[in-house]
């Protein structure tokens, strides 16, 4: 049986390999970390050299960081955006994401640099949900970051020019199920943001890797080594919802935001 990408990367590490195996084995008692170690074993998105480099960094951090989880996260942060890039001619024109309403109100507040508080931002987001005109709120909304550090985005693979959420049921539960947003609670309102890739300065769109996911247990590596992008893992297969494409990009403001945004 051929070696997996992970096993190949480990094979190139000699003295560190056992240390890394032991660290991941210790995670089996933790349901969330055991999923992370599973993801590492099933990763196909990293070139062998990048995978080896990530594991070497992990090994070196194991001796200096507090816990093996801290070491893993520290290693991941030095190996972001290593999945293949979608060629610019194939980039989706429209991308989107869902995030918590509280999260985005926080983003609007921070970007306002003292102009708005979080509660003011939240009230205006609620007021303008579904609206094509934002009046005086628009500059503040467009300054807000789409996401922190690294943005996970989705798109419509059948038609790159359209809103990817138009092909999903317009309901909160179905959206978070399809996108694999696992720690959702009943009182979590979602905001769905859509943006033009071009108007957001066309950042490189990468297939996600385990390094991009860090310790997020709801990420699943795509099993197809040749895949151009990743796929979400719907929280429930019985929902009938299909996995959605996912890519990662550097954090950007909402300058390319397309209206309306919607709150569910």
């Amino acid at each position, binding site marked *: 049986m051929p070696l997996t990408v992970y096993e190949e990367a480990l094979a190139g590490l000699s003295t560190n390999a056992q240390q890394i195996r032991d660290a991941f084995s210790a995670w089996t008692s933790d349901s969330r970390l055991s999923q992370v170690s599973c993801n590492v074993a099933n990763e196909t998105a990293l070139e062998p050299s990048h995978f080896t480099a990530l594991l070497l960094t992990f090994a070196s951090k194991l001796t200096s960081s507090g816990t093996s*989880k801290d070491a893993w996260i520290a290693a991941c942060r030095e190996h972001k955006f290593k999945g293949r890039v979608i060629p610019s001619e194939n980039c989706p024109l429209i991308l989107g994401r869902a995030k918590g309403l*509280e999260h985005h109100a926080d983003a609007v507040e921070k970007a306002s640099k*003292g102009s708005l*508080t979080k*509660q003011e931002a939240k009230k205006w987001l609620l007021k303008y949900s579904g609206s094509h005109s934002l009046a005086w709120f628009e500059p*503040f909304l467009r300054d807000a970051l789409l*996401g922190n550090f690294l943005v*996970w985005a989705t798109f419509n693979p059948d038609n790159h020019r359209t809103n990817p959420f138009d092909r999903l049921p317009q309901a909160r539960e179905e959206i978070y199920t399809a996108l694999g947003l696992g720690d959702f*609670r009943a009182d*979590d309102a979602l905001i769905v943001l859509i943006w033009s890739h071009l108007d957001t300065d066309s950042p490189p769109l990468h297939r996600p890797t385990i390094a991009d996911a860090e310790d997020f247990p709801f990420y699943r590596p795509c099993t197809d080594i040749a895949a151009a992008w990743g796929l979400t893992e719907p929280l429930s297969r019985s929902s009938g919802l299909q996995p959605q494409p996912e890519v990662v990009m550097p954090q950007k403001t909402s300058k390319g935001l397309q209206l309306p945004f919607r709150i569910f």
Partner: protein
Amino acid sequence: MPMSLNDLTHDDVRAWLDRALHGQEPLPKLTQDEPAHLGILRLEKSLMPRASEALRDACLNLVRRFCVNGSGETIYSEELFSLTSAFKLPEAVQLLAQASHRFPEWHGTPLEVRLAVLAMLVDTPPPQSVDFWISILRQDKENYASLALSGVLSTNLRHAISLLPEMPNNERAGSASVLKLDLACDDLRSKKKTEFIHEISNVLSRCGERFRLPVAAWVASKEAPSNISENSQSLVIALQEFLGIESSPRTRTPKLCHCLGS
């Protein structure tokens, strides 16, 4: 995820919270990039009352630590104040209000941290007094004016209006003020709303020109509907004259009922 948070001592909970605010503890996050304080709040909902109280006490203790000299990493401090606001800790609010008077001495405290404190004080009860916000405004008009306006608006509309000429003379400050004035206006009854807008209109000539532009546009947009309501009254009278008995109760629709004041 720390299933054992319910079993930790008070000191251990404080240490856990310190690490969690630094992003060093697994948290139930909606998305990977969600701020730590939102994951902490989500986790808190599943805690036993004793552990939940310990978490709140830990938050208060970390606020006390900040208030000694305003030191702390920016992202960590912002997370701490967001958590404090969500927990609605009145003692923490008072500590931070008192500490904000020392901002001029805290040269090492980044502006983002100071703004995060002030925004938290606007959003979190108990509200601070008008005098408090005036003193904040005097510290740094350029950076604190918007939040000071928010603070005064929450307790004294008339005084807030008197502050408008002191706002920084730029369009962004004007647009932010419009958003705040509009929210305040939403909470007023019709007659008070008209008075509120009229009083704002009266101070505009004393405001900076760039600040005034968006506010004047907003005032104009608010004043326009009063013409529509006058027209509605004329329309109702005309309908009654034209329809005669047909405008009587047996033929009323809900919309017409409203116009006729029934």
